[in-house]
């Protein structure tokens, strides 16, 4: 009886081990979408491309950080990648992230006329961060310059906040119209 019981327990444990392994393998195949990148979802191969990202810098300016990003060929996905890289923050000392941690990219649209629509989302924050005009311009033009000067299909940018277009983020720049790059703000 003892031998029988031991054999039964051993067989059950073996079955659970094999079954669990199979379950994990099948589940990882079925739910793999959550960890896939945009290019994998769009079925487009990614390629390494050299970008010049514009980050806020000392002196009220924005400064270029050269960056190599793995991006798909679709212009819209490139726009998204650029903004995601900006929001993730710079890798160079002396540069700062344009928006607080927690701000993410929502919908990205790229119209045939070259207007890129970028929805910046900051859950639980109805209002964009406050600030002076220079601060607002550093935030906004780090995005506008980075998109337009890196993605040839984008010529101007409309920024939305939590899904809505606003007159302004911090009370200065007119964001009700598309913006084009500001080279005067770039550190030489």
């Amino acid at each position, binding site marked *: 009886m003892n031998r029988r019981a031991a054999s039964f327990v051993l067989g059950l444990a073996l079955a659970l081990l094999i*079954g669990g392994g199979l379950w994990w393998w*099948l589940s990882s195949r079925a739910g793999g979408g959550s960890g896939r990148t945009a290019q994998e979802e769009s079925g487009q191969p990614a390629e390494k491309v050299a970008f010049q990202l514009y980050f806020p*810098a000392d*002196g*009220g300016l924005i400064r270029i950080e050269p960056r190599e990003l793995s991006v798909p060929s679709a212009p819209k996905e490139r726009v998204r990648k650029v903004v995601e890289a900006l929001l993730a923050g710079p890798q160079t000392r002396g540069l700062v992230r344009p928006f607080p941690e927690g701000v993410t990219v929502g919908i990205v649209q790229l119209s045939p006329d070259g207007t890129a629509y970028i929805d910046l989302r900051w859950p639980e924050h109805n209002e964009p961060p*406050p600030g002076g005009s220079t601060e607002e311009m550093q935030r906004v033009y780090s995005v506008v310059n980075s998109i337009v000067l890196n993605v040839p299909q984008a010529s101007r940018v409309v920024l939305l906040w939590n899904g809505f277009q606003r007159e*302004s983020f911090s009370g200065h720049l007119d964001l009700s119209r598309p913006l084009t790059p500001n080279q*005067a703000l770039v550190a030489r």
Partner: protein
Amino acid sequence: MKDRRIRATLVLFGLLLPMLVAAQGERTQPQTPPAAPSRAPMVVLSGREIAVPVSITPNGPLFGLSPIAAALGGEMTTDESGESVTLRVGDRDVVIAPGSAIVTVGDVIISLSQPPTEGEGGLQVPVDFLRKTYGDLLGYAFEWQPETARLVISRRGDRELGVSLDVVHLQGMTTVVLQFPEEPRYRIQRLPGTIVVEMIADRLTPPSPPRVVQDPLVQNVTIEPQQVRIQLADGVQAASYVLANPFRLVFDVHPSAAVVVPTRPTEQPRDLPGIRTIVLDPGHGGSEVGAIGPSGIQEKELTLQIARELAGKLGSTLGVQVLLTRYDDSVINHDTRTAIANQNKADLFVSIHLNSSLGAGAHGTETYFLSPQASDKRAAQAAAAENLAQEQEPATSEPVATADSAAQDLQLILWDLAQSRHMAESQRLANLIQRELNQALQLKDRGVKQAPFRVLMGAAMPAVLVELGFISNPEEEKKLQDPAYRDQLLDALARAIGRYKALVDGEQAPPPAPAAQAPGAQPGRPPSGGGAAPAPPQAPKPGAPPARPPARPGRPA
């Protein structure tokens, strides 16, 4: 033997059970939920059924777009990446990205009840998409009847719309304005020498008597029930755009000569009646606090204090009426600020701000006037045309509207372009302010700059935004809270505005600024005249011409 069988069965069951659960889990995680079975829905156009694939989803029905576009008119193209589809409806491009509920109609973004998706027969769209495109643009009505699963498409009855015509010629450019009681459905056709505004589903009631047009750039404008024809003179071109509340279709007509962006002011101000009223705009207010200093001081508090003090100084030294856009800690909309200035016929608009930056090391003062980008291509063209006219034409070269009536016309019909005709003078004022601030305060000169600042756009007078220092910089924050330092700053601003007033009024300019004084020393102050407290500004009146700018079309609700 029996025990062995039982054991083998249990082992086999133990092996199969997790596999069955895993397989079930895989089946219950489909990539996209299948559409609910159709109950033979149909689409009926003018009493006749048309073959349109329909999917019923939990969020409502989706309709195949291709057959509807074929029936109602509209060309569909897919962009090179295959990510978005453009549908041409009337004279608008509608850009659809399958899977996204955000759609652009011309320059307007709209949000749909559910995203268009790829389904049977291609792209499928919700009924609100059809209403916002074919309904708004071409006059179709879409009624979804869920109990019978029928979408009934019908043509709205033609409306009779009144239309008024204004033609304004100002400094080398003619503006033709067609004003309607509500937005008509139309398309614009450009023929050689003629622009035709063709009504799609409306009929126009021409004004009576017909307006006779005498203009160097526009030969004639004829209004018929089905169309408006604008006949242009030789060698001119026209750009069109719309303004809202009330709906206006505007054509800027100017010579085809190259247009340059304005970069330098004219040598002498022209057609300015003098500086009698100045509006100071304390930046931010209420919940919009602006910049915040290291000690916690908020920009909105200091700007109000500075504006109040400057108002007293200007009132006493220049003998002008000085108004503030806000007298307390209240939220004032950007457009309302300039509306206050316009309504009170202000001659100058000065928006007072304090700065902050990301990163370290920013300090100093800077003064902004509007950049041409702010009011986009058409404003740049208008401003450029104005500057071109100022540079090339003698003052009496051709009949122009008087300054007052022209300004009023602009305020009435071209709010969006209000600042464009004053940019040269705004730059002159900005230069004077920056020069005086530099000489008096000896801070870092960040210069005169241009930016698309919202608060400057609607000002129908020279307008600047002055940044009086960085309160994100601890040293400058401390200085700005020092009354003696602020007095120096106020004196510099008052001198700059006084010099500008002297230039405009044709008076002798006051002497240049004294050398900078050490902080804490009593600055040279102009004789005190007591300076009556500024009167509250006249609030913008609803419906009065420049009281409020028109709401921009296309703001997402």
